[in-house]
C-alpha cells in the first residue's frame, strides 16, 4: 500500500505498537518476528517508515533501528527537545563496513601519520592527549543523507527521518598540530583519513576520506578523543574521531588511526566516486536530469526544526504557549530564525538561546497564541551569518543528500 509522503519534521502519526504490534509482519520478518513483537515500534511519516526502537546496541539507549549490520541507528527526534547537546547514548550511528572492531585496547592503539611528510609519526593515545594543546568545540555532526526518507520522489539509501544528526562538545587536538609533528612537505595536496573498520570482502574499498591540505591545516579540523565530557561510544568512533566542523559527517572518520599526506589527488572510491552531489545551488536537480557536473559533498547548509510541537498537534485557541526548537547554520553560525504561524505569509523573529559557537545547535523559541479555530501551518526558517537561508522548496538529487527545506507542521486550534 502507499501512503502519501509527508514533509513534516516530526515523527507524526507515531504509534507505539508495544507487544500487540507486529502481527502481520511474521511472514516477512521470519525469525525476528518474535523480537519485533517484543519491541516498541515507531512509525516515521513516510511510506515503509515503521522502525523498531532498539535498545540492544552497546553504550546506546533507545534508538530507531535502520540497520543492524553494520549499524545504522537514528536518534528519536524528541531527544532534540531536551537541550542543544545530544547525549552520547542517543547520538546517531552510521557505519559503512561491517568489520568493526568490537574491542579496542588503548594501550596498543596507534595513530599513524605518514606519506608526504618529513618523518612518519606513530602516536599513542597518551602522547596525543599530553603532548598537544587540547581544544574544545561544539559542533553538529550530520549525515549527508539526513532526512532522505522525505525525498520525493523517494531514493534508495538509508531511510532516515530527521534524526541522523547530533550536536556534541568535542574535545581533542588540532589536526594541524599533529600534521606539524610529522612535517608536511611542500607539494602536499590532500590529507587522507582512515579508520579501523574494514569490509567483509577483501575487494571492498576501505573507508577513507580526504580533505584539501589547507582545510586539514585550518586549525579548526580536530581529532576528538572526548565527546560531551566522556570517551566516545565505540559506535561513534572510540577512541578517536575526526571532527570537521561545518562539513557533512562523511568526513568525520571514526576510529581514526591513519593519516596520510598525499601529493597526488586521492582517487580512492570513497573520495573520488562516493558522496558526490550535483554542483548546483542546494545540490538540486530535476529527477532524471542528466549531464550535471558532480563534486564531492562538502559544507553543510542551514536547518531549523520544531522540537516541542509535532504534526497533527492540537492547541487551544487563544491560549498562550511557547513553541521551540533547534537550528544550526551549517558552515556558519545562526544569524536569525524566523517563525510563521500563517503558512509563511507573515514571519516573526524567534528568540535565540545561548550561543555555544558557530557550529553548534542553537535553541530558538517563540510565543504563540493561535487566534482562530481550525488548521494552522507553522513554519520555521534559519538564516546563517553568511546569508544562506533555508529554501521554500525541497531540493532533490538521486543520492538523497543535503535536504534543508523550510520545515513545517500542521496543527489544529480548538
Amino acid at each position, binding site marked *: 500500500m502507499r501512503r502519501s509522503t509527508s514533509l513534516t519534521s516530526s515523527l507524526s502519526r507515531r504509534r507505539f505498537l508495544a507487544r500487540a504490534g507486529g502481527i502481520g509482519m511474521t511472514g516477512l520478518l521470519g525469525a525476528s518476528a518474535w523480537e519485533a513483537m517484543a519491541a516498541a515500534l515507531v512509525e516515521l511519516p513516510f511510506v515503509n517508515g515503521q522502525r523498531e526502537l532498539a535498545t540492544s546496541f552497546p553504550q546506546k539507549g533507545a534508538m530507531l533501528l535502520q540497520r543492524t549490520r553494520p549499524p545504522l541507528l537514528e536518534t528519536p527526534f524528541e531527544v532534540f527537545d531536551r537541550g542543544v547537546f545530544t547525549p552520547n547514548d542517543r547520538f546517531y550511528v552510521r557505519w559503512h563496513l561491517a568489520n568493526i572492531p568490537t574491542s579496542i585496547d588503548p594501550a596498543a592503539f596507534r595513530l599513524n601519520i605518514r606519506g608526504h611528510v618529513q618523518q612518519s609519526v606513530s602516536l599513542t593515545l597518551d602522547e596525543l592527549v599530553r603532548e598537544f594543546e*587540547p581544544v574544545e568545540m561544539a559542533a553538529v555532526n550530520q549525515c549527508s543523507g539526513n532526512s532522505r526518507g522525505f525525498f520525493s520522489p523517494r531514493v534508495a539509501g538509508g531511510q532516515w527521518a530527521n534524526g541522523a544528526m547530533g550536536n556534541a562538545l568535542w574535545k581533542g587536538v588540532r589536526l594541524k598540530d599533529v600534521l606539524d609533528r610529522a612535517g608536511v612537505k611542500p607539494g602536499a595536496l590532500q590529507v587522507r583519513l582512515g579508520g579501523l573498520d574494514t569490509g567483509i570482502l577483501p575487494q571492498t574499498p576501505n573507508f577513507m576520506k580526504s580533505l584539501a591540505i589547507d582545510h586539514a591545516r585550518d586549525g579548526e579540523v580536530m581529532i576528538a578523543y572526548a565527546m560531551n565530557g566522556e570517551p566516545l561510544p565505540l559506535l561513534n568512533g572510540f577512541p578517536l574521531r575526526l571532527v570537521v566542523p561545518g562539513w557533512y559527517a562523511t568526513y568525520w572518520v571514526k576510529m581514526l588511526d591513519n593519516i596520510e599526506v598525499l601529493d597526488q589527488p586521492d582517487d580512492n572510491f570513497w573520495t573520488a566516486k562516493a558522496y558526490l552531489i550535483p554542483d548546483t545551488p542546494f545540490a538540486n536537480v530535476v529527477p532524471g536530469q542528466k549531464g550535471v557536473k558532480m563534486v564531492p559533498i562538502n559544507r553543510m547548509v542551514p536547518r531549523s526544526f520544531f522540537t516541542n510541537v509535532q504534526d497533527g498537534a492540537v492547541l487551544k485557541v487563544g491560549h498562550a504557549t511557547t513553541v521551540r526548537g533547534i537550528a544550526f547554520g551549517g558552515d556558519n553560525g545562526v544569524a536569525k530564525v524566523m517563525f510563521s504561524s500563517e503558512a509563511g505569509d507573515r514571519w516573526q523573529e524567534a528568540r535565540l538561546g545561548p550561543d555555544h559557537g558557530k557550529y553548534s545547535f542553537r535553541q530558538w523559541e517563540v510565543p504563540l497564541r493561535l487566534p482562530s479555530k481550525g488548521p494552522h501551518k507553522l513554519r520555521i526558517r534559519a538564516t546563517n551569518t553568511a546569508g544562506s537561508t533555508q529554501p521554500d522548496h525541497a531540493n532533490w538529487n538521486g543520492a538523497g543528500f543535503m535536504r534543508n527545506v523550510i520545515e513545517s507542521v500542521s496543527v489544529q486550534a480548538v
Partner: protein
Amino acid sequence: MTKSSGMILDGECRPEGRGTGTVPRNTTSRNVALVRAVPMLVGLALAAGLARSQAADSQKWAKVTVDLPVSRTAFPPGNGADIANGQCLICHSAGMVLRQPPLTEAEWTAEINKMRTAFGAPVPADQIAALAKYLQSINGGQQQHD
C-alpha cells in the same frame, strides 16, 4: 575553537558489553542517568566560561569491549530469496533492504550493480535480473504493514 579548560571528566569507560538479549534493568537506569547528567555537565562547563584549569589533562583510557547485536532477519520467501539471502547478507543485514521505499526493477538493478562494481559483491551476472525482480516484488510498504 576554544582552548580546553581541562574540565573533562576522568574518562573511565564503561563498556556495556551487552549481547543480543534483553537489557538488564540496572544498565537501563544508568543510561537514563547519563542522559540527564551529560547535558547538565556540559552546561555547567560552558557557564563557567571555560576557565582554564591548572590540572593536567587526566583522560584515562580503559579497554573497551562490546557485543554488537546479530540480525537473524532473513529475506521473505519468493523467487530469488535464496540469491538475496546468499549474496546480500554477506556484507549487511536485511533490514535496510526491507526498509527501502518502493523502488522500480531498474532502480534495484542499479543498486545491485553498485554493490558488484563498487563493493565487490560476488553476485553472478546471470542472477542480477532475478535478484532485481525479487527485490521489486518485496518492495517496502507493499507487503509489510496493514
